[in-house]
């Protein structure tokens, strides 16, 4: 996975922002997941524009973080969420 990829939340997932966190439910497995405030902000940006690069660029402006570190963190989160069925690639 790279910053050029585009992702979305599949129909089989319910997501809801609760406070500054986001709760996700994989309806196929019945498993709940939580994202902290930063992860929640990332998902919000991804829902607005599915390109990971857009979220990366926006978060760089919002947080004091090195681009390569943010990229690694984002891609790791995306991989983890995709492996749990919480994100899917847009073809």
């Amino acid at each position, binding site marked *: 996975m790279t910053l050029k990829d585009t992702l979305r939340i599949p129909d*089989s997932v*319910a997501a*809801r922002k*609760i*406070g500054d*966190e986001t*709760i996700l*439910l994989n*309806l*196929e497995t*019945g498993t*709940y997941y*939580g994202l902290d405030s930063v992860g929640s902000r990332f998902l919000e940006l991804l829902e607005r524009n599915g390109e990971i690069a857009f979220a990366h660029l926006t978060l760089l402006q919002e947080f004091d973080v090195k681009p390569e570190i943010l990229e690694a963190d984002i891609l790791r989160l995306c991989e983890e969420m995709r492996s749990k069925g919480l994100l899917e690639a847009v073809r």
Partner: protein
Amino acid sequence: MNGTHTYRICDLAIASNIPLPELTAATVFAADCHFELLPPGNPSPGNFVWFHHWTIEEDNEEEVAKEACKEAWTHFARTSDGYLLRFPSCGDFFLSADTLRIQCRPLPRIPEVTVRHLLLDQVIPLVLSRRESVVLHASAVLTAHGVIAFAGKSGQGKSTLAASFAQKGCAMVSDDCLVLREQHGNWIALPSYPGVRMWPSTAEQLVGKETYTADVAHYSLKRRVSDADLLPFANRPAPIRRLFFLADETSTVSIERLAPGRAFVSLVEFAYNLDIRDAAFLRRQFEAVGQLTETIPAYAIHYPRQFASLPVVWDTVVNHLREAGDRDAEGYPAHSR
């Protein structure tokens, strides 16, 4: 159905072919649900795929009950026209998919009191979970500030806590199964049915040795206390005001606000759910719990599990509600509390 008895529990009109003396009889024009006790027999044969299991583990005071509770499993399976709930040591309950029909085939020699307990306290909450907004494993009482709920695992003391509030004059809304219904953005708690289940020592401490208590089930030492003079029971719905989740025991009493995410997860943990694989139901429950989290403040309550501490818990909760009431009057948004 001949010999039909009709009752109401949590606003559910139920018709039964056996008397259910724990419930208040009601004149019902059209029942929402029909219960039929079948002749005793062996478990239904068939290669059922069990998709879910319940284990009841309580922090019991008597070894006999502890052993019995360890065996009190519930297995969930889908059938061609609904669900099978198997209580291996007691019998089978069959639910139609629309939950309009419940049948029980008890194992031989299982007494009716046990069947009624399983029906009222384990099966009906699952039926209600299909029909109502949110059904919680929680005790609740009606205070001067509205309904407050105590949610916690079995054996954590929620019935004892609620009963101690009832003794102060707060009507019991539920002992174990709290139905919360969303109505135009407001959340209403529906009274379940009169009575509280408690350990003999708890009953002795709270309502006295001389009070009449009834059996709950043949496998449990718990007693059912239904004396309305000692423990008044709410007879109409009322707005839910606060959710308290029973936290680990501490030496002092304290109340802390739960972060919204934690409140959400706690609500899901204590919500009844007949079919954890039903995506449409899960989505509906997800939305309902989300709305509830955003509307009703949730707290963790820590306290010593000693009878002598119950008056302090009462004072702490009442002061908390009074202060929260003052803030409400000043127009604080619910989510900022």
